[in-house]
C-alpha cells in the first residue's frame, strides 16, 4: 500500500452493508417497533396512571413472584445445568445419547403440555405430590410449584450453552494445574469455572429471561391465586380479558424495562468475566 492512501480492510466474506441493513431491519420489525407500540399504548394512561396501575398490591405481588421465582429457578438451573452438561461432556455411559436428547424436550413440548404434566405429578394426589404433601411441602398451587415449572423450562438453556464451552476446555490445562499442586476443588474453582463463566452466565440469563416471560407451563401448576401464586404474564392476560388494555400494556411496559435492565447488567458482567478474550 502506498503511504498516505488508505483502503478499507476487506474480509474474506464481504457484505458489511447488506448484513447490517438486514440486522437493523429485523431488530426494528421484530423487536423495537412492537415494543415501542407497547409504550405508546401505555402512554395513554400518563405517568401517574401507569404508576397507580403497577403499584397496587396485587400487581406488586405478581412482580415479586415472577422475578423472584425466575431468579431462584435460574440459580438452581445454573448449578444443575452445569452438572448435567459436565456429565454429558466428560463421561461415557450407556444411554448417553438418549439423555442428551431428553434435555431438549422442554424446548420442543408445547408449554401447556408441560404445565399439565407437572401439575398432575405435583398435585396432592399426584405421584410426587402424594409423597410431599404429608411432609408439609405442597408444591402444586404454591410459589414453589411456580419455581419448579420455571426450572423445568429453563434447564436446556444452561445445558446447551455450557456444553460447547466445556468441550472446548483443554484437558492439558487441568493437568497443568494438578502438576502445580492444585487439588480437585481448586482446579474446579480456579481453572474450570472461571474459563466457562461467560457461557454459564449466558445460559443462566437465557433461562432467567425465558422464565420471566413463561406462561403456559406455569398457569396450571400455580393455581393463579391473586396475591399468592399469580405471575405477571397471567395478570396481563387477566387485564386483557377485562378489556383493560391500558392497564395490561402498563404492566407490560414496566416488565419490559425491568427485564431489559437485568439483561443489560448481565451482559456487562459477561464482558467483564470474558475480558481475557481481548486481543485474541
Amino acid at each position, binding site marked *: 500500500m502506498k503511504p498516505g492512501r488508505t483502503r478499507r480492510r476487506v474480509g474474506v466474506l464481504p457484505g458489511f452493508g447488506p448484513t447490517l441493513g438486514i440486522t437493523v431491519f429485523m431488530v426494528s420489525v421484530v423487536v423495537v417497533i412492537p415494543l415501542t407500540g407497547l409504550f405508546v399504548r401505555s402512554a395513554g394512561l400518563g405517568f401517574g396512571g401507569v404508576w397507580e396501575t403497577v403499584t397496587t398490591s396485587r400487581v406488586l405481588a405478581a412482580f415479586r413472584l415472577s422475578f423472584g421465582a425466575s431468579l431462584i429457578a435460574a440459580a438452581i438451573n445454573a448449578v444443575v445445568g452445569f452438572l448435567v452438561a459436565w456429565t454429558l461432556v466428560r463421561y461415557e455411559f450407556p444411554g448417553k445419547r438418549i439423555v442428551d436428547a431428553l434435555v431438549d424436550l422442554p424446548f420442543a413440548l408445547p408449554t401447556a403440555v408441560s404445565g399439565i404434566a407437572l401439575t398432575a405429578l405435583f398435585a396432592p394426589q399426584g405421584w410426587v405430590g402424594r409423597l410431599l404433601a404429608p411432609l408439609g411441602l405442597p408444591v402444586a398451587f404454591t410459589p414453589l410449584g411456580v419455581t419448579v415449572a420455571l426450572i423445568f423450562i429453563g434447564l436446556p438453556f444452561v445445558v446447551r450453552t455450557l456444553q460447547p464451552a466445556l468441550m472446548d476446555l483443554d484437558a492439558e490445562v487441568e493437568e497443568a494445574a494438578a502438576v*502445580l499442586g*492444585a*487439588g480437585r476443588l481448586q482446579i474446579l474453582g480456579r481453572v474450570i469455572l472461571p474459563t466457562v463463566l461467560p457461557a454459564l452466565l449466558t445460559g443462566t440469563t437465557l433461562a432467567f429471561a425465558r422464565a420471566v416471560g413463561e406462561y403456559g407451563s406455569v398457569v396450571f401448576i400455580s393455581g393463579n391465586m391473586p396475591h399468592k401464586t399469580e405471575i405477571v404474564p397471567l395478570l396481563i392476560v387477566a387485564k386483557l380479558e377485562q378489556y383493560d388494555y391500558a392497564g395490561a400494556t402498563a404492566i407490560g411496559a414496566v416488565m419490559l424495562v425491568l427485564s431489559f435492565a437485568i439483561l443489560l447488567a448481565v451482559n456487562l458482567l459477561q464482558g467483564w468475566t470474558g475480558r481475557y478474550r481481548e*486481543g485474541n
Partner: protein
Amino acid sequence: MSIEARHITKTFGAFRALDDVSLTVPTGRLMALLGPSGSGKTTLLRIIAGLEQADHGSGQVLFDDADVAVRPVRRRGVGFVFQHYALFRHLTVFDNVAFGLQVRPRKERPDKEEIRRRVGDLLRMVQLDTLADRYPGQLSGGQRQRVALARALAVEPQVLLLDEPFGALDAKVRKELRVWLRRLHDELHVTSVFVTHDQDEALEVADRVVVMNEGRIEQEGTPDEVFHHPATEFVMRFLGEVNQFHGRVDAGRVAFADVELDAGDHGRLAGPARVFVRPHEWDVSLAPPPQAAIRAVVKRVQSAGPVVRLELRTADGALLNAELPQETLEQLGLAAGSEVHVTPRRLRVFAADRLPPTAGD
C-alpha cells in the same frame, strides 16, 4: 534429585506404548528422550510426572531412590511444560506464574509480597517482566512457552519435565529457545528431561540422549556417542541422513556395491549385512583412488548452502547422496555429468538377519 524408572510397561488397549523400559537420570543432568511419534517417549515422561500410570504391577518410578507411586501428581514436586503451553487463559501472565504458589495450603503459602517478588524474579529471568499484566491470548507462541516455563519453575521443582517444549514454534524461535533452555539449565541445575523428535534439538541441548523406538530404548549415551557410535540401525537412520547398501561380511572384509573394503570394527560379523555411509563421509575424486571405490556419475549439484550436496548415480543404477565442502567442489570442478569415484572414509555395518526398522529418515 535423581530420577529412576524401572521396568515400566504401558499398554493402551492393544497398543504397547512402553515395553519394559528402564532409565536413570542423574541429579542435575539434562536428558533428552528422542524418537519418532509413537515411540513412547511422551508416555514415559507422563508416567514420571504421575500424569499417567504404568500398567498394574509393572515397574517403579523413584525420585532420589524413593518410590513415588504413592504420591499423586500434585505431590510429586515436578515442573511440567506442555507442548501446547496449557496456560490458564483467564489469568494474566503474573497470575499464571503465581498459580502454583497460590494454591498451596495456607500454612505453606508465601505471603503476598513474597509471591510478588518471586514471580517478578521469574518473569525477569524469562524476559517477560514487562508483559505481566497481559493475558496469554495476547502473547506470541515463544512468549507463551516462556510463561509456561516460568510457571513450572515457580514452585521450585526438584525435577523439570518438558514435553516437546518447542514443537509448536517456528524454526527460528525454536533455535533461540533451545540455546536459552541450555543456558537456563546451566544456571539452575535442576534435573531435567525433555522429549523431542528433533535430533538436532536433542544433540545440541542435552547432556545425555535416550533414543527410543516402538516402546523400547535403542541406545542411551552422550550426544557424541549416539551420533558417532550408533548401537543399532534405527539410531543410525534416525540421527541423520544415510546411504544404505546390501552387502556381505566375510573374514573381516565387507563387500557391497562393486567394492570390497576392510570392515574394521565390524569384522566380527559374518554373512549378509547392511552397510551405511553418511553423505558427508564420502571421499570424492576424479581419478581412481588407490583403494577400492564406487564409480558414479554426478546427476545434480546443489551448491546453495554451507555444504554442497551431490546426487550421484552408480553404475548399477543406485542413487547416492554426498556432501562436500564448497572448496572441494571448486578444486574438482564438478558439474552434472562428471564421472567420479567415491569411497567411504567411514562406514557402519549391521547384520542383516533382522528386518530393517521402518521408522527413521
